[in-house]
């Protein structure tokens, strides 16, 4: 009873804090004299990437399956969500919105949640159809299946004339007026959904179902021998991840107010995979840090001009070289992790020398073993 009360208080406090931050962010976003649109945009894109990466971690990290087509689900969510708020705009809002027209907080939030739900369900449904046959098999089939699936979705988007085809979708023209995608996504909802997905993931990991996911990753045959219905669990993880990615897509499209086949291409899927692997496969904290890093880093390096992509790639390579298990490995940030960090703390010079030594060791070891 007491625990429930504490939980309710924590949730209420989180919502209140996010709501307060939302006021600050929307002020930054809407006042051009503050010149903050660019950092706010990167913040929003990073948070949306966090949602997508954490959802992919359910499949690639927890369950140990290798999905390489996550952008397809993201895209399905984005296209479905946008279709809903554009083609049914009159029914949802009562009239066609002018560009930049404000609607009430409750109405726009309600429509956004509906779009996320519809986008998520559409993605989950296709995830089920794609996942069921391929997840019955063991091995790398899923990787190939999902790559193919991603390509199919891009081809369909390219040929979806009603939604802009290759040029992308930002609404439909009726005569010369544009029925645009309404700007429903606020910092409040993005941050709240990101927090919710992270908490859900961490709790899932600690639950019986989470353990079942992880047992499949460790040894599928042993898991099956222990009586775990592996296919069912694999499909569950896959469909859940697809649902969350679809919702993230709906959030994205109502933030950027456009979507095109180029946004959901295979390369975007690879980017999601890199986020999860970089952070540490199987670590929720890792997926979060990976998503933020991969969104912020390319922008932060922009001042270096054409060397940007070189520096960026070298940073990724170095990180993977010194830490192949990803930034967090399978750990989560928490009390145990903190304690581990404090134990055996060395001075900075000692660390640098240790790091150099290990790099040498590593190369020498590679040389010998190959």
């Amino acid at each position, binding site marked *: 009873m007491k625990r429930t009360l504490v939980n309710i208080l924590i949730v209420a406090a989180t919502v209140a804090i996010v709501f307060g931050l939302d006021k600050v962010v929307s002020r930054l976003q809407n006042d051009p004299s503050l010149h*903050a649109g*660019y950092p706010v945009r990167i913040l929003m894109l990073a948070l949306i990437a966090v949602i997508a990466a954490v959802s992919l971690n359910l499949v690639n990290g927890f369950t140990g399956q290798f999905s390489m087509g996550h952008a397809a689900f993201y895209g399905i969510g984005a296209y479905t969500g946008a279709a809903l708020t554009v083609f049914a705009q009159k029914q949802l809002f009562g009239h066609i919105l002018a560009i930049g027209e404000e609607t009430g907080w409750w109405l726009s939030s309600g429509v956004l949640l509906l779009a996320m739900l519809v986008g998520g369900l559409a993605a989950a449904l296709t995830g089920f159809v794609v996942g069921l046959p391929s997840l019955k098999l063991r091995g790398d089939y899923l990787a190939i299946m999902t790559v193919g699936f991603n390509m199919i979705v891009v081809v369909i988007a390219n040929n979806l004339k009603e939604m802009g085809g290759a040029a992308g979708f930002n609404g439909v023209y009726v005569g010369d007026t544009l029925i645009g995608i309404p700007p429903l996504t606020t910092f409040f909802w993005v941050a709240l959904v990101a927090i919710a997905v992270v908490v859900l993931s961490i709790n899932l990991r600690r639950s019986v179902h989470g353990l079942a996911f992880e047992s499949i990753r460790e040894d599928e045959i042993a898991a099956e021998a222990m009586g775990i219905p592996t296919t069912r669990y694999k499909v569950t993880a896959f469909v859940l991840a697809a649902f969350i990615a679809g919702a993230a897509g709906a959030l994205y499209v109502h933030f950027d107010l456009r979507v*095109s086949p180029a946004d959901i291409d295979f390369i975007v899927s690879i980017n999601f995979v890199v986020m999860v692997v970089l952070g540490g496969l199987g670590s929720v904290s890792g997926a979060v840090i990976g998503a933020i890093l991969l969104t912020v880093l390319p922008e932060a390096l922009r001042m270096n001009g*054409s060397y940007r992509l070189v520096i960026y790639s070298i940073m990724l390579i170095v990180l993977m070289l010194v830490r192949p298990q990803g930034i967090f490995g399978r750990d989560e940030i928490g009390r145990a992790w903190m304690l581990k960090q404090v134990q055996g703390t060395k001075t900075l010079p000692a660390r640098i020398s240790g790091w150099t030594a290990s790099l040498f060791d590593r190369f020498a070891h590679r040389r010998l073993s190959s």
Partner: protein
Amino acid sequence: MNLSRTGKWMSVALPAVAAALLIAGCHGGATKSSGILIGEYGALSGDTATFGTSTDKGVRMAIDEVNSKGGVGGKKVQVKVYDDQGLPPQAKTVVTKLIEQDGAIAVLGEVASTNSMAAAPECQKSKVPMITPASTNVAVTKTGDYIFRTCFIDPFQGGVMASFATKSLHAKTAAVLTDVSQDYSKGLAAAFKNTFTRLGGKIVAEESYEKGAADYHAQLSSIQAAKPDVVFVPGYYNNVGAIGRTARSLGLTVPLLGGDGWDSDKLFEAAQGSLEGCYFSNHYSIENKDPRVQEFVAAYRKQNGGESPDAMAALAYDATKILIAAFDKAGSPADGDYSSEEYRAKLRDAIAATKDFKGVTGDITLGPDRDAIKPAVVLQIHGSERRFVATVNPKDIPL
């Protein structure tokens, strides 16, 4: 030795470095520079990197020319370019950065219509004029009154080829073969039919196919039965090659005509010589003997180590020159602040008033829709070369 320790150290260091860089990159918003800053965005890496790099070369050449003549109102013009990797969300991000952090007064870009359409709302919102040198999709300039384009839109080419067919090839009858799965193709076909009939010609056959079709015997047989003087095929190069081969194998020998969708070396491979002597329209030709074009080509080669300017470079050069001309026309701001909203509105009006600008891609006038009214060139296929045949002006096409 202690791998996980060093890795941990790195894992803390990397995000910290990233955060520090980002904060450093923002450096407290736009600095009121006394110069004139033009923003440019394009794909300098990624799938369409050739578009972006050619555009950049064209822009830089125009800027260098202006600065060597003393700049605008005695001030040097600077250009800042960001790479969007050909990705629409990145295009939007970099344009936001150009406007907010760097204080760009005007923005040039992109080639791909998708990317232009992604960034245009940012320019419109901040009231910063944007000129796209090469996005031909009709929807791009519909975003708002600060968005301009200095190339022609897709359907114009239909009128160009109709006029060329009647006036230069003396065609009385024509057939049209449309790819009904492409807006591009349908737009060109409609414009062709309209102009051709107005010029006194007769459309004797209309056939269609869908993208990905493999066989065109049925359509081309009925076209042949109608005995047209020319056949207009406004498709993309990947279909047109097979159409050409099928037409010749059926004994249909009249010229086939097309738009810039034909412009690819792949077409010559697929057509296997069947399109010899056929014509298509394009933005510009390096072979055009007009001294304006030849001077530009010579100067470009000199600046870029002998490399010939492609259509993207020529279009970007013209777009930049139009922008510079607009700066001259708008005059220096009384308070010396080029970045003020009043000045940008003045600049917008000056761009909108562009009339008979002498560009290397022809005389350019901006119409009420902020789209360019300008000539197209007609090229003829000879082996694997495109030879310049004629320039078709908008006034040759009855509306």
